[in-house]
């Protein structure tokens, strides 16, 4: 019964711990000295990039590389006075992905006053379509990712009243598949990243009752491979960012104990770049802030107490969620 499984083999000398100093330097230096072309190439995701880097630093108990005033001021200048939305960087159009990232950063630093909050509320509200779904920007691409961004943003601002939540739930429910998972739109293939978005959405809206809990938990557990890593769909390679999405989903479902935590920890630790710092998608690949924040967050969910506790719904430090007195729904074991 030889079956070829798409997976990787871990090397021998895997770091036993999180390489804090290296990661902190990696994040702080990212885009400063290093590889400036890449920095310029990624201006379309600058604010989200800041969220990944700054959240990673906070979870590692490290201070940000700039003052909170500087960071807030930058975000403030990315807010479009007309629509109220926030863009990835100056001279770009606003997008809901960056709007959420901006709000997450400002909540972390308790400095929402830096932006026009009512403008953000108006922006998100205007992205909702009659069927309850959300577009990401004025061009109308619909995706369950944007449903999550919308409710995550508004709940952080304590303004869920601005949208039609029931219709929003109906749309997300219509994206539930026969295998228990969720896709980007109705009948789109189940995908771990989108499952996280939909469960995150349902956690914020307190509507996890619509989930086929056991079926979905099994589908998520099926993502674990012999290397310990998790993939995002059947027959795909393991990847650190999927470790986060699958793990946070299982946590929301109250089924975290179903995973082989030790094997997964080993896989995630193996994705650290021992020279440059940072986490990569897989061992030996080039590290980046995106996989770094999700690697650290996943280790936090797995109980690593050398980093701060992360909230599985918002991917933000738990102490921030507590300060905001938010209680996203998490199912009991």
């Amino acid at each position, binding site marked *: *019964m030889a*079956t070829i499984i798409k997976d990787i083999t871990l090397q021998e000398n895997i770091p036993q711990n999180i390489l804090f100093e290296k990661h902190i330097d990696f994040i702080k230096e990212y*885009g*400063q*000295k290093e590889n*400036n*072309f890449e*920095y*310029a*190439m990624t*201006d*379309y*995701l600058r604010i989200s990039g800041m969220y990944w880097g700054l959240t990673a630093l906070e979870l590692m108990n490290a201070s940000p*590389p*700039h003052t909170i005033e*500087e960071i807030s*001021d*930058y975000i403030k*200048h990315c807010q479009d006075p007309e629509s109220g939305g926030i*863009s990835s*960087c*100056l*001279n*770009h*159009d606003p*997008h809901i992905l960056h709007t959420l990232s901006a709000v997450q950063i400002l909540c972390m630093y308790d400095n929402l006053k830096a932006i026009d909050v009512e403008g953000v509320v108006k922006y998100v509200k205007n992205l909702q379509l009659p069927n309850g779904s959300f577009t990401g*920007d*004025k*061009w109308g*691409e619909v995706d369950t990712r944007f449903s999550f961004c919308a409710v995550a943003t508004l709940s952080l601002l304590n303004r869920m009243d601005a949208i039609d939540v029931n219709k929003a739930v109906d749309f997300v429910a219509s994206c539930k*598949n*026969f*295998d228990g998972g969720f*896709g*980007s*739109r109705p*009948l*789109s*293939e*189940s*995908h771990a990243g989108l499952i996280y978005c939909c469960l995150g959405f349902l956690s914020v809206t307190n509507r996890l009752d619509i989930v086929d809990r056991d079926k979905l*938990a*099994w*589908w998520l*557990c*099926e993502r*674990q*491979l*012999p290397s310990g890593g998790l993939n995002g*769909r*059947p*027959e*795909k390679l393991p990847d650190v960012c999927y470790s986060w999405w699958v793990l946070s989903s299982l946590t929301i479902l109250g*089924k975290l*104990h*179903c*995973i*082989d*935590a030790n*094997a997964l920890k080993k896989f995630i630790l193996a994705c650290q770049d021992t020279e440059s710092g940072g986490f990569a998608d897989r061992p030996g690949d080039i590290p980046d802030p995106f996989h770094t924040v999700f690697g650290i967050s996943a280790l936090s969910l797995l109980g690593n107490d050398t980093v701060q506790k992360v909230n599985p719904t918002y991917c933000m430090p738990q102490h921030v969620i507590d300060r905001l007195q938010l209680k996203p729904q998490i199912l009991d074991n």
Partner: protein
Amino acid sequence: MSDYSSDENDDYVLYKNRPEWSDITPLAQDDNEEPIVAIDYTENFKDCYDYFRAIVQKKEISERALELTQTAANLNPANYTVWQYRRDILKGLDKDLHEELEFVEKIILKQSKNYQVWHHRKVLVEWLKDPSKEKYLTEHVLSKDAKNYHAWQHRQWVIKTFKLYDGELDYVDLLLKDDIRNNSAWNQRYFVINNTTGFTEEVLRQEIEYTLSRIREITENESAWNYLRGLLLHDKAGLSNNTTVKAFVEELYESNNRSPFLLAIIVDMCLEQVGAGGGDSNYSAKRAVELCKDLMEKFDTVRANYWQHMLDSIGSESGEGTSGN
């Protein structure tokens, strides 16, 4: 027309050296005194985007602006502002959108995992109301990466919007012949049937037959088993009462097959029967417990914790003692 965007092109002329751009003052990336700026990227890139920023600020709708966005899009197709501005210009100048289809097709074939290029394509198809090239384009992309999520999403949108379901099941079949574990293709199968005939009794019978024969070829196939379970959602009798499926499953088990997916479905059949009051004594809590143990210890050790959890929940529900506690 020469392709300005190619870095390898010796004839490439920087915008600052093009006479038709001499009236524009390029606008360097200004991150508003934000300290994380340090720019030293390639000259072409900086040159193009400095002019791009300048022209966006002017909101200029012109041929040269259109050409500039072409270079900018080629240099960085993920930059969503470039595409949005380009669409404004296309509309403003009333351009031939078929040419634009060809342009974006070239970029899609190089950058097929990029949200912006696919969205641009979708908007063009909407404007043109012409889906005739979309199946071919997505097939081209899927021939290189059969699970490309963007391509599938685009294909589903086109098929649904323009009612192009004809022949789609044959295409799915083709993909499954190539890779029987292609989860995207199985999902597409569900999409087509759900949106056309629906899962009538007759369709259900045929689909179960089809799926069982695919499982027979390779039994360790998560996607096919999941599809089978998806089909049985439409069987009013449930997961554990379909005689064809039951016969198949038992025959496979008898032949000493121990695919985790086979054992897992028997576990669920047992639990369904037990939950419904145990009509079929072949599907008992005791059998489920034994299978979970086998899965945990021998056949699906990666998921040992999952099966332990399953054992615990069977124990607490059926009152049977398990090794868990």
